[in-house]
Each structure stands twice: as C-alpha cells, then as structure tokens.
C-alpha cells in the first residue's frame, strides 16, 4: 500500500516536471518510478523504523502556522541586523522537550532551525541543544507552543 502511494506520487511528479506525453518519455518515467520504488524498498529493509509522513489537513494547518512564525522572526531579526547597536545576546543552551518519536523530533528540530534566530545544534534523548541570537527566542520555545502543536499532530 505504501509503495503504491509512493509510485503514484512519483509518477505525478514525473509528468508535472516533463509535461511531455510521448511514448518514449512516459516509458522512461515508468522505468524511473520502478527503480526508485525498488530503492525505497531496500532502504526500508536497512532502516528498521521507517517514519512515514502523509500530508493531511492538520499538517497543512501546522505549516501555515509555521510560515507565520518564520515571517515574524524574520522581521525581528532584520530589525536587529539594521539596528545601529546590533542588539543580540547569543546563547547556547539546553531545551527540554517532550517529543518522542523520531518523526516528531525531526519535525520539531527542523521547525526550530527554519525560524531565523533559533538553531538546533544537537538532538539528544530528552533535550535539544539550541543556539539562539536572543533570550526572547529561547523563552518563546520554552513556553512550548510549537511543541504542543507538533504533539497534537500525532505523527
């Protein structure tokens, strides 16, 4: 079932990128799709815990919320960069976290890195190491709204 979804996704991707419907190109596309699905199967056998993330309404909701966060922190950082006194207080500290599954950890760490001003440098069992340009950035993460939203996704 999973491989069927992957094949359909890849086939649609090929058609969108090529835009040609001649026999040769569609045939090459089918061949590529089969090859990639075979690779994915082999990778799943090596990786004992394959995380699977299917986009749903909840995930899209999270993405829009994240986009808004990215815009806000970009404006904040741009203001700091142009400020004559360069008001930054870089800090490197520990962020305790309740996320558990590898997929949740990846999502959370990448979301932190994607918002400018905070950066995940290390992922441990129950905490992340965060480098931030300001104390407010760390405080905002410690309040845990992003974490709650990720836990609510149940991925």
């Amino acid at each position, binding site marked *: 079932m999973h491989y069927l979804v992957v094949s359909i996704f890849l086939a649609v991707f090929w058609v969108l990128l090529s835009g040609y419907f001649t026999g040769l190109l569609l045939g090459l596309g089918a061949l590529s799709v089969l090859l990639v699905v075979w690779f994915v199967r082999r990778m799943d056998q090596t990786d004992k815990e394959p995380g699977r993330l299917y986009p749903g309404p909840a995930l899209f909701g999270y993405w829009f919320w994240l986009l808004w966060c990215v815009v806000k922190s970009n404006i904040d*950082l741009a203001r700091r960069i142009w400020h004559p006194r360069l008001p930054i207080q870089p800090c*490197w500290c520990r962020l305790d976290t309740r996320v558990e599954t590898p997929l949740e950890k990846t999502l959370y760490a990448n979301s932190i890195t994607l918002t400018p001003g905070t950066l995940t440098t290390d992922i441990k069992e129950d905490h992340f190491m965060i480098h931030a340009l300001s104390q407010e950035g760390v405080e905002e993460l410690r309040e845990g709204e992003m974490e709650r939203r990720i836990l609510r996704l149940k991925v």
Partner: protein
Amino acid sequence: MSLLLDMLSAACLLAGSFLCITGGIGLIRMPDFFARVHAAGVTETLATPLLLFGLMLQMDWSLDLLKVVMIMIFVLATNPTATHATAKAALHGGLKPLVSEDDPNDTGEPSSKP
C-alpha cells in the same frame, strides 16, 4: 486586476531583495560563525520565498508555475537540514559558540550534561 497583481508582485520582489541585502549585511556584522548562520537564514527562509512568489504573480497558469512552487517547497525543506548539518559540523570541529556574558541561562558546557 492586472495592475493590482503587478503591484503586489513588485512589492514581493522589493521586500525579497531588501531581505537579501539584510542577510548580507548581517553576515558581515555578526560576531561569530553561529550568529552568521542565523543571518544567512534570513535570505533562505523569507527572501527566497518572497522573490519566488513575486515571480509567480507575473506568470500565466502553466506547468512552469507549478515548478516554481516546487522549487519553493524544496528550498524550505532542505534549508533547515543543511543549516543543522553546518552548525553540527562546526561544533564537531571544535568551534565553540560565542555567548554574551550577561546571559543568566548560559550553561557553558551543555553536551556534558546527562
């Protein structure tokens, strides 16, 4: 309608260009490697999407439009991974982040904690 789209597109392109310059200025002004990574993030996370969105508004409905959407998604998906890898490589190579002295939550040696 077309004038409105043109104006919106111009606003996006101008804002994106301004943020690109901001990222460059930040790259020069920031004190150390880790702070520079944040500044570079401005050009990737908001400037690029704004520029691409501004371009999209100039395009007709076609496959090319979809390709630009895909470029945007790929930039946003790969940026945090690459940034994380860069920062981790710097730490691994023995570079310690510069931290401000008046920071009360500064732990100094975080990796040694359990």
